[in-house]
């Protein structure tokens, strides 16, 4: 798949532009980007264009996909349109995942950069603190948070965000430890930059590539998390999401497989497209790892 000449040529380029060009040469990554953009557009404009309300009865119950009497992807036990559900449900799922992923990334960046930059007792303290959250199985922990806070979209988002920050924290710390010792950081210190400036302007940009890849993974994990919580019925029951459609139709899986299959397929395609983008970023930033 790899033309050796091109690979060497690109890897000698430095900076974001070279990486961007590398990314564009990766067909799978570009496909991921196109598909993901399409999904985002569908969740934003789709409900308006399709015009069927997801929570209302659209036709008879349990109509299979392709049934002439019903909508394209069939209907569920209350005769609700599955396609409308998938289009509308994506909004909640993607919104929660994006916000929770950003929240986890932000928390992880703060904790990890403080630990990696200052080292010593600050590092020891913050890392012990991180370990506590890593010891609790994340889904169980977010279940407890929702149990304590009660359901609601923002609370669910918070419960997911507060569970997933340990991974980016450890990664940020490792990157800061690595970059901290480099010459240009010493140079920045020598010209009198303060700690905050060194952390945000000098180290962070150089620690960014693996963190960007981690951010894509976090969003996929957050999508799966929200789907799992909604499937278990732990979220606001009035909000339609990919997970909640599957949860509500779970008992009818054997008679109406399509009610569960299509929301799940939507998750797999979305997650895969984001993972492909992450994979492309990884290859672009670190050509040595190509194909691994």
């Amino acid at each position: 798949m790899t033309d050796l000449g091109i690979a060497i040529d690109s890897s000698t380029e430095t900076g974001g532009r070279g990486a961007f060009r590398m990314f564009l040469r990766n067909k799978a990554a570009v496909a991921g980007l196109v598909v993901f953009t399409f999904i985002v557009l569908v969740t934003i404009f789709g409900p308006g264009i399709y015009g069927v309300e997801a929570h209302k009865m659209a036709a008879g119950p349990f109509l299979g996909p392709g049934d002439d009497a019903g909508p394209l992807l069939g209907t569920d036990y209350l005769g609700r349109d599955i396609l409308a559900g998938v289009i509308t449900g994506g909004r909640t799922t993607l919104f929660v995942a994006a916000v929770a992923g950003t929240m986890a990334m932000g928390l992880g960046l703060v904790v990890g950069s403080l630990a990696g930059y200052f080292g010593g007792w600050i590092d020891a303290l913050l890392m012990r603190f991180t370990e506590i959250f890593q010891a609790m199985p994340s889904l169980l922990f977010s279940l407890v948070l929702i149990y304590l806070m009660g359901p609601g979209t923002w609370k669910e988002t918070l419960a997911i965000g507060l569970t997933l920050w340990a991974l980016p924290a450890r990664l940020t710390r490792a990157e800061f430890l690595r970059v901290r010792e480099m010459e240009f950081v010493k140079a920045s210190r020598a010209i009198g930059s303060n700690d905050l400036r060194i952390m945000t302007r000098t180290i962070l940009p150089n620690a960014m590539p693996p963190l960007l890849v981690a951010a894509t993974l976090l969003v996929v994990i957050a999508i799966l998390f929200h789907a799992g919580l909604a499937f278990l019925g732990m979220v606001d029951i009035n909000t339609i999401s990919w997970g909640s459609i599957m949860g509500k139709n779970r008992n009818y899986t054997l008679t109406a497989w399509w009610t569960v299959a299509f929301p799940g397929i939507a998750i797999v395609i979305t997650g895969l497209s984001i993972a492909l983008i992450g994979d492309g970023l990884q290859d672009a930033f670190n050509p040595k790892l190509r194909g691994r």
Partner: protein
Amino acid sequence: MIALARSIGIRLGQAIGLLLAVVVIVFLLIQIAPGDAALYLAGEQGVGDAEFLAKIRADYGLDQPLLVQLGTYVGNVAQLDLGESTYFSQPVLGLILERLVATVLLAGAALLFSVTIGVALGVFTARRPESPASHGVTVMSLVGFATPVFWLALMFIVVFAAKWGILPVGGIEDVRYEGGWFGETIDTLQHLVLPAISLGIIYLAIYSRLARASMLEVLESDYIRTARAKGAHERVVVYKHALRNGIIPVVTAAGLQIGNLLSGALLVEFVFAWPGIGRLMITSIFRRDSPMVVGIVIFSAAMVIIANLLTDLVYRFIDPRIRVGGSR
């Protein structure tokens, strides 16, 4: 030998400290959460006057200062007392232990399946890096990473249990079955196949890619070239020399993933009506059985911490170079 015992001792001490910290954090979270425990308990009894509330506060120690409450709680947990379930009126720990076997069986089978097949696939494709199978591993790992485990479980039920009828739909045993222990074991294993594969296949996707990447790297290293140069048989080079180093990242990942494995097991138990800890957690949440919910979280954290300790020990076994533990 003394150094080994000492480093294991240090790791053990760290593990206990970590568990203690988990207990404290969980305790504090419950304090921060809105709601008055005494009011809730009074509501369950159907009495709400001030005198009764005061009695509840005194009975449950809720009138004590926060630090005293924390001390009592940590002391109880240290004596393996996780409180009493409000739904079952039985000790929480006993109820958890009753369901532990089912969860360990499920998670253990999934782990075994994913690690063995994953490593085998990884080794196979690492020796043929440009083959279709090799690219297949990369694609499958991304698909597996993006797939909700509960959805896969439901789809398996649709295909294998409902359409083809070759495997049971749920539960851990067939209640209609009457026979010897051998038949019962076969029956349980039949019930185990679909849950374990649904859970394991997600990790199989991840481990096969990890094993492949790691083996590719190891097979390029100098000592492998030396081994080949001295005329060692290719099979010996791959399975004896390379595999031992190549498997380390997979063991690391598997150890670190135990918490996620338990999270996945919770969803799979829910789908397959598998009578494990995860299902108990979900039903306890719906019953608002707080001591049970909190007990399960602390217990699972203990399981993760113990699993991480065991991973450390496995390291020492696989890689004698690792003497001082703890670098993760």
